[in-house]
């Protein structure tokens, strides 16, 4: 096989993946502008803007996203730090825990949660209840983002350097670790937003009216409005992802050079 052929094949693979994302987007876009027959216009968008439920669901999703980010970081930053510093041998365990959310089918988790929710009465259910599964859902990305960031830092050497200079743990974390992890932290936060904004299974089954649930609800009544919402949802999450991409790029350069051995 020549070199050129070799380069074509994965390129083709990427192209196919790309098309899979682009075709539905374009089709959705076109469809959202359709007003029946030969007419195209912004009617679907106009109709949506005046629905208070849209803004309520969007607000709920944003609030949940922020709560999820905070809880996730407070739990994971020390855990991943500790992993990289002292218990490298536990990495397989961490890797295992971090993929559990994909492993335990969400539907099974929901069934478990529903059981608890409808069975014994003592487990109260508010929308905040969703933060727990969302932290779990965001776990793999938050974990990965933090782990990649910390690994690139040569954390062990930096920690020892900082200790030999007399710094305590607080100085170490807030003056050395966190400032060099801003990229990773922002990336984790943006990913969490994307996930929470898009999560449907839990919210739907547990009967909370989040943004994703609202899209589905609209879809049942107006196909063109659903298409318009879908585009909006794409927009929000893609913006979040572009954020990840660009912070990731800047940070990559910084980390790569600074942490080089």
């Amino acid at each position, binding site marked *: 096989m020549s070199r050129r052929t070799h380069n074509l094949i994965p390129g083709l693979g990427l192209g196919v993946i790309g098309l899979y994302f682009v075709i539905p987007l374009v089709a959705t876009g076109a469809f959202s502008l359709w007003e029946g027959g030969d007419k195209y216009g912004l009617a679907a968008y106009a109709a949506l803007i005046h629905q208070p439920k849209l803004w309520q669901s969007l607000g709920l999703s944003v609030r949940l996203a922020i709560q999820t980010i905070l809880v996730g970081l407070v739990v994971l930053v020390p855990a991943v730090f500790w992993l990289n510093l002292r218990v490298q041998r536990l990495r397989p365990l961490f890797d295992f825990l971090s993929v559990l959310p994909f492993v335990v089918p969400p539907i099974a988790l929901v069934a478990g949660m529903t059981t608890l929710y409808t069975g014994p009465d003592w487990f109260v259910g508010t929308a905040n209840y969703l933060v727990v599964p969302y932290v779990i859902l965001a776990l793999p990305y938050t974990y990965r983002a933090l782990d990649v960031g910390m690994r690139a*830092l*040569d954390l062990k*050497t*930096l920690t*020892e*350097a*900082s*200790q*030999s*200079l*007399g*710094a*305590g743990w607080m*100085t170490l974390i807030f*003056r*050395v670790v966190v*400032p*060099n992890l801003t990229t990773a932290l922002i990336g984790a936060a943006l990913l969490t937003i994307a996930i929470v904004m898009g999560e449907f299974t839990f919210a739907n089954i547990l009967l909370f009216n989040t943004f994703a649930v609202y899209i589905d609800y609209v879809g049942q009544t107006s196909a063109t409005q659903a298409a318009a919402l879908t585009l909006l949802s794409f927009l929000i999450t893609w913006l979040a992802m572009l954020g990840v991409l660009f912070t990731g790029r800047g940070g990559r350069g*910084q*980390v790569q*050079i*600074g*942490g*080089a*051995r």
Partner: protein
Amino acid sequence: MSYLQLDAVAKHYGSRTVLRDVSIDLKAGEFVSLLGPSGCGKTTLLRIVAGFDQPDSGRVVLEGRDISGLAPAKRQMGMVFQAYSLFPNMTAQENVQFGLRVRRQDATTQQKRARELLELVGLGEHAQKYPHQLSGGQQQRVALARALAISPALLLLDEPLSALDAKVRVQLRDEIRRIQQETGVTTLFVTHDQEEALSISDRVVVMHDGVLAQVGEPAAIYGEPANIFVARFVGAVAELQGVVADGSAGMVTVLGRQVAANRARGMAAGTRVYFLLRPETVRLGPPDAAGMLHGTVIARTFYGALTSLKVEIVGGSDCVTAAMASGDAVNIAIGSTVSINWDPDSPRLLVA
């Protein structure tokens, strides 16, 4: 009284013994190298002094105070690491100031001291640069300045040169020695490179499999190796099998010939010895001269000032290497027969 005292320090990882009852004393202001091959325990020993590893038994005593239980942050030791260890988010100056900032010194003092130290390591003009804007050698200089900024009780250097290019390595080595002598800070330096250890140290500690093979001044380590491991590890040496022939006359039988070696005096005839010749003590002459041994030149290696000739000794497959000024070596062709001589004081004998 000794400044730093390592007292019967032992360390195991599971069933593997890394250090067996190692005891070393350092005088104040001394520059001591820990020299040995990979896995000899030298880095573990340094990390125990720094407090990053805990010994299984034994004590680390600094100025009479047992610091074995002290956290690394409380030990006041400046350390330079093998990996580049500067904080990537801080400039060179901020890195150097870090230890002072932790000690809550006032900003002016911090800046003044950081400036001084960056000047000392020759980087006064790079104070505002970030680590990724500095070369490897410059980063290690900043790391040195940072370690010195806290006026450490002890300076610990963990192979700080091994990631650098050969030329930079030699420059920084000389610089480290100069700075250490200027500041007078007691220093412990870990290296696997014998030339590095010999050239930079007041004393060298040669380690092997977790024990001390020899402790002494560079000239003593090189000139009077205490055992065959040290002889082989430090410097080049030709190693022949010998038997003491005459202990009163100082004669040893090597490859069937009696040769002179004053150090055989007093040894019992019949003692098996390693007969060791450093290349620079071997003199080659024309084949007709009355040589102690004869041989054939089989290889020539040019090192710049010196050239070494490898000579296969007649009557065996053993070789000796002779080092001489490159100008003199030009006249000896590969394949030519030569006589091999040495001053009877030169050979070192180690009982086999």
